């Protein structure tokens, strides 16, 4: 039987088709390479532009005086550009946030991974994803209205805008990151460990505290570092509640002092500075410092996570993260350092007798631990774990309830379809809704092809080598860059250098750059989840690379890519910092005519209403609710797509 002939045509035509096909294959590969290279080029450009604009201040003031100068007074008659108080502010706020978030997060992660029943899990996990989806400006709004007021009343202060408020708020915002990454780390511990420990007769708590958590420790460490990165890079929320006085708290543990962070400085001053002035340059200097800090933080988290990932394949001869002889002292000093810090904070935050009481209980527990039955210890520990999970849930409910209850009365047909009047106190938010939709649509139209192309190149076309390492590092750097830095870059490069002006286009491009890493990551993940046997099966049939990718690999990966895109849309819709200087105006009666016009946007509208317009309570809550519904709706859609199609593929 001569089927080959009848099916494939004569050999001559066949080979002609093959050269054309080979050319096409090469073209496609080149195309994907270009999309992947974009990430690296963008990172290079960001660094280049920030440095170029920051250079004048470094030469004017000198790097040591810039970093260590005690006074930040850029608009004084004799301006001083010392960012030391800002750096200290950033570190203190972040540190406080971690003191608040780490115990809660780890407790919740342990609860979800080890204790929760499937039903509780199915409530708690989406709740945490919901928390991750709330835009930072909404957190800031909540912090400004509810949290600072609470602190003002409780501590009897003139204003609640303090380090404490900023730390608590940032801690809440870092919760979802730390919880989900820690939970992944704990879930990834092989069942054999658990069974091995339980089979010896250890209690569940002993198994968790002595086998599972230690085994997941580096993953949890990475989770905390990612949380730190999130907190350091956050702008809007922290700027709205921190009080923003550029001072170092006195004494240093005075958590009721106002502070100012690096990001807050950029957010406050960037909009009002004269382009090209010393002050302008100093702000770019601040951005460079901020970028360096976040890069170090995020790259170390990435390094740890990657180490775990590769460690699981247990290649012999791999260098451990720490040399063996250092491991013990390092972990010991970390442990005692942590205890010391917690004690200092106890005394700073609570009345003295309460702090002493807690300390005594802790000490008694430590020394009396052998006298207490291990089943009681288990009960107490599980109690604490459940309390931390409940706390997280309650925080979410309070935030949502406040915004929904106060926002619902403001919602009306007019509110959704009319332009604002009287500086946003009256009228509606129609142009802001439309503006946000335009911005997001444009951003995704730019980011989706680039991101998916880059991911396809990274997963399908390359072997791990120097180029992929470079691209991956570029993506990681981009992913860790604070959103305000994107805003600055968009302003310096697109608005000023390319002379596009403050416009929808500038905002779309800036947002696109910001969400690209998310799209690349999620696409990479879903491509990697397609088993290699399918690719081999297709290639073994004589399909070309591109045929294999487009017909076998991509179709089942589509739900994952869609999920990633929707998450990116949600993120882009809620972001304020990147569009603040590039695309938006506060009040505008009309919709933009072209991409070169500025637009209104929901997050920015909320920010201005909350901070600059007194007496707009109804519209504030209304705007916050609309933004929340929009973003949370997108996130729920993403979650639905994910679970729905997962089930479909499995079934």
């Amino acid at each position: 039987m001569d089927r080959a002939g009848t099916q494939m045509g004569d050999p001559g035509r066949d080979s002609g088709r093959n050269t054309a096909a080979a050319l096409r294959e090469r073209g496609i590969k080149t195309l994907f390479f270009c999309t992947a290279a974009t990430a690296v080029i963008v990172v290079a450009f960001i660094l280049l532009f920030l440095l170029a604009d920051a250079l004048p201040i470094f030469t004017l003031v000198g790097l040591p005086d810039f970093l260590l100068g005690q006074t930040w007074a850029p608009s004084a008659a004799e301006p001083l550009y010392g960012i030391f108080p800002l750096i200290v502010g950033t570190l203190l706020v972040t540190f406080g946030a971690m003191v608040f978030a780490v115990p809660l997060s780890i407790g919740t992660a342990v609860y979800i991974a080890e204790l929760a029943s499937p039903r509780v899990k199915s409530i708690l996990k989406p709740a945490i994803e919901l928390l991750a989806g709330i835009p930072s400006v909404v957190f800031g709004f909540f912090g400004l209205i509810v949290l600072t007021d609470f602190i003002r009343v409780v501590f009897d202060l003139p204003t609640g805008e303090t380090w404490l408020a900023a730390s608590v708020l940032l801690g809440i915002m870092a919760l979802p990151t730390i919880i989900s990454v820690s939970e992944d780390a704990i879930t990834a511990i092989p069942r054999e460990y658990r069974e091995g420990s339980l089979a010896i007769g250890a209690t569940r708590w002993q198994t968790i505290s002595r086998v599972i958590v230690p085994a997941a420790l580096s993953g949890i460490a990475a989770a905390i570092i990612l949380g730190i990165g999130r907190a350091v890079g956050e702008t809007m929320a922290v700027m709205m509640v921190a009080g923003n006085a550029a001072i170092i708290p006195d004494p240093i543990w005075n958590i009721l002092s106002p502070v100012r962070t690096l990001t807050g400085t950029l957010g406050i001053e960037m909009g009002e500075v004269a382009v090209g002035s010393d002050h302008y340059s100093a702000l770019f200097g601040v951005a460079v410092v901020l970028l360096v800090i976040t890069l170090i933080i995020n790259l170390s988290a990435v390094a740890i996570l990657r180490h775990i990932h590769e460690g699981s394949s247990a290649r012999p001869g791999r260098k451990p993260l720490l040399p063996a002889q250092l491991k013990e002292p390092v972990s010991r000093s970390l442990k005692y350092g942590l205890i010391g810090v917690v004690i200092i904070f106890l005394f700073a935050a609570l009345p003295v007798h309460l702090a002493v009481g807690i300390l005594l209980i802790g000490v008694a527990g430590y020394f009396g631990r052998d006298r207490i039955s291990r089943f009681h210890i288990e009960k107490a520990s599980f109690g604490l774990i459940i309390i931390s999970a409940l706390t997280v849930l309650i925080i979410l409910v309070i935030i949502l309830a406040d915004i929904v209850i106060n926002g619902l009365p403001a919602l009306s047909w007019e509110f959704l379809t009319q332009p604002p009047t009287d500086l946003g106190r009256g009228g509606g938010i129609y142009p802001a809704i439309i503006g946000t939709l335009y911005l997001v649509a444009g951003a995704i139209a730019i980011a989706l092809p680039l991101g998916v192309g880059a991911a396809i190149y990274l997963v399908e076309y390359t072997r791990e080598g120097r180029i992929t390492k470079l691209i991956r590092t570029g993506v990681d750097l981009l992913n860790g860059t604070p959103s305000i830095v994107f805003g600055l870059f968009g302003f310096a490069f697109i608005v000023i250098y390319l002379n596009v002006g403050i416009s929808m286009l500038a905002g779309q491009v800036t947002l696109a750059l910001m969400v690209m890493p998310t799209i690349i990551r999620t696409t990479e993940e879903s491509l990697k989840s397609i088993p290699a046997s399918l690719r081999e099966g297709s290639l073994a049939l004589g399909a070309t690379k591109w045929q294999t990718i487009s017909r076998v690999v991509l179709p089942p990966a589509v739900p994952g890519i869609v999920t990633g895109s929707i998450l990116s849309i949600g993120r882009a819709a809620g972001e304020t910092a990147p569009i603040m200087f590039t695309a938006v105006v506060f009040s505008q009666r009309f919709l933009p005519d072209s991409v070169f016009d500025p637009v209104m946007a929901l997050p920015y509208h909320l920010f201005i209403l909350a901070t600059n317009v007194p007496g707009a309570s109804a519209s504030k809550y209304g705007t916050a609710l609309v933004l929340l519904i929009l973003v949370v709706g997108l996130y729920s859609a993403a979650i639905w797509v994910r679970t729905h199609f997962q089930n479909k593929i499995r079934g």
Partner: protein
Amino acid sequence: MSSDVIIATHDLNLWYNSTHALQSVSMQVKKNNVTALIGPSGCGKSTLLRCFNRLNDLIDHVRVTGEITLDSENIHRPGTDVVSLRKRVGMVFQKPNPFPKSIYENVAYGPRVHGVRDTKELDRIVEESLRHAALWDEVKDRLSDSALSLSGGQQQRLCIARTLAVGPEVILMDEPCSALDPIATAKIENLIDLLKKEYTVIIVTHNMQQAARVSDYTGFMYLGKLIECGKTSQIFEHPNEELTENYITGRFG
């Protein structure tokens, strides 16, 4: 080289990183016969099989020296079109790997990527391939069902049908029955017997009875070397090498 040899290797060496996985393998595979490769786990038989359609190209850090010829043409010659090589040398894997598509689409996939667009032609190829793979009667009423709804044995026969649909000359089978139960295994073995009329089959198996049942020629491999290769009856009844005899009589492996 006699004209009925379709695949031959000459002094073939292969390294994974620094592991010398195939050591100076020289063998000949005769057309329209079933050749079995046997040997203990890790002896290189699957690696050798994956050389014949250059699927090892997909693995990082693999280095190959020596010569493999298909119809007297070296398949490592620069400019070899790997895609058309794989069209001529099909492969069935150890675990059934149907695409997450319908039964029909799985079989039609190969012809489609090779440019067949005519629906009638595709229908014909799909039916013929499924008949050849002895699966047609079981699936003809549900061609649009997902391939993942089939049993393991049916999935493996679907993968065979998918390979046949491209019209290969050689079919490589990498332990095609190791994930299947005895009944499904028997069906595949019968199928292999039918296939050799039109195709050349090279099968890797760790099941010596299977090699004895289905193959005309058998090669025994050990630690990356081809110890001996010859008629199956001769290998099993009068092996030349002591190693072969020890393996076949179950003294190690």
